[in-house]
């Protein structure tokens, strides 16, 4: 008696191949999809024999503009910000080098994301001093820092309390000049139990930037 050989149904192979294509697509997307592409974008890309991104140069002086600070929605210890009045934090920062203060900002009220401009006019000071002229160099509030090997700045962030008695520490971010570039740098501090700083944008621009270019810089938000 002849044995009947079972035949694979003709539709099995097409389904199998479509599954293989789908599986490889999912694998490719998981490892090299948009999220991965975004991470790659964060790294500077070098052209052939020529750097596209400008690093800082030793011996040069740069303005350091703390453009934006974003905080987590909880304090480092997990408590809510300003629990007394259920409001968002009043973000304030101090920039220092080797323990010496370079800049102390004013506070940005009730915000998880705060921005500062490098240019400001102290109207009160002008009125008190009777000033009638504005010195362009005096408008720039961002501190000047000369880049030397090992230059590191400390950015201390806190939730300002109006009375000054109950400031709540948000965290300290170290700005290592050797890792920064000319222009805008976005720093994403590692999540730790002692810091609630989620993101810092710091802009470094040359000390000899013209006022016109500086105004354009500020206007580009």
């Amino acid at each position, binding site marked *: 008696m002849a044995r009947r050989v079972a035949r694979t149904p*003709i539709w099995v192979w*097409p389904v199998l191949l479509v599954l293989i294509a*789908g*599986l*490889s697509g999912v*694998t*490719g997307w998981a490892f090299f999809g948009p999220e991965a592409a975004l991470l790659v974008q964060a790294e500077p890309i070098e052209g052939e024999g020529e750097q596209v*991104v400008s690093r800082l140069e030793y011996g040069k002086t740069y303005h350091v503009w703390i453009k934006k600070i974003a905080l987590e929605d909880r304090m480092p210890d997990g408590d809510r910000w300003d629990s007394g009045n259920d409001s968002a934090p009043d973000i304030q920062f101090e920039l220092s080098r080797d323990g010496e203060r370079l800049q102390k900002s004013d506070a940005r009220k009730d915000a998880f994301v705060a921005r500062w401009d490098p240019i400001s006019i102290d109207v009160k000071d002008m009125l008190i001093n009777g000033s009638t002229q504005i010195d362009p160099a005096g408008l720039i509030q961002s501190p000047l820092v000369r880049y030397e090997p090992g230059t590191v700045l400390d950015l201390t962030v806190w939730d300002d309390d109006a009375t000054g008695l109950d400031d709540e520490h948000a965290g300290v971010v170290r700005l290592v000049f050797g890792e920064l570039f000319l222009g805008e740098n976005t720093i994403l501090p590692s999540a730790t139990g002692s810091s609630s700083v989620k993101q810092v944008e710091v802009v470094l*621009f040359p000390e000899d930037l013209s006022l016109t270019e500086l105004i*354009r810089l500020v206007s580009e938000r």
Partner: protein
Amino acid sequence: MTRNPAVLVRLLLIISAALLGFGLTLPCMTVVPNFGPYEDWVRLLDPSLTHASHYSVVSGIGSMFEQGAVGIGALLLGFSVIFPGVKIAIMVAAVEALRRREGPGWLMRLVHHAGKFSMLDVWVIAVLVVAAKGLPGDTEVRLGPGIYLFAGSVLCSVLSGAVMHHAEHKLLVGQVVKS
């Protein structure tokens, strides 16, 4: 169709299917903006303009739908994603039919017509690369691995089509001789 060509065709189509999935999802093109002598200033004033952009076929189609270019997006979805997958499925079904000596039938005719559109996407991306050469400030377009994998998938399906065509021809000749 004898056993060996059938095994070869199946293997080529399996490779083609795997390469298709990777080719559609891996970056096929990277646009690196460059503004020539103004590069530093642009980075200073609007750094987002200097960031490289990576595109895969799938992410590119998604962007088109998001930006309202539904027609183009649908066209690319059809010819880049759906059509190649359907073509591979039809080819493997056709080789099964050939192996069982059921004759070429409508499946093989479908495969013949489908083969004409095989290199459409590779051609589109090549045109984009050439067009990008004309952008100012030394902006560069770099081909990513996705385009090579996609082209590899197309080549494997073309090769399997050639083997199948040869086997189909032998089958037809055999049938003529018998008759």
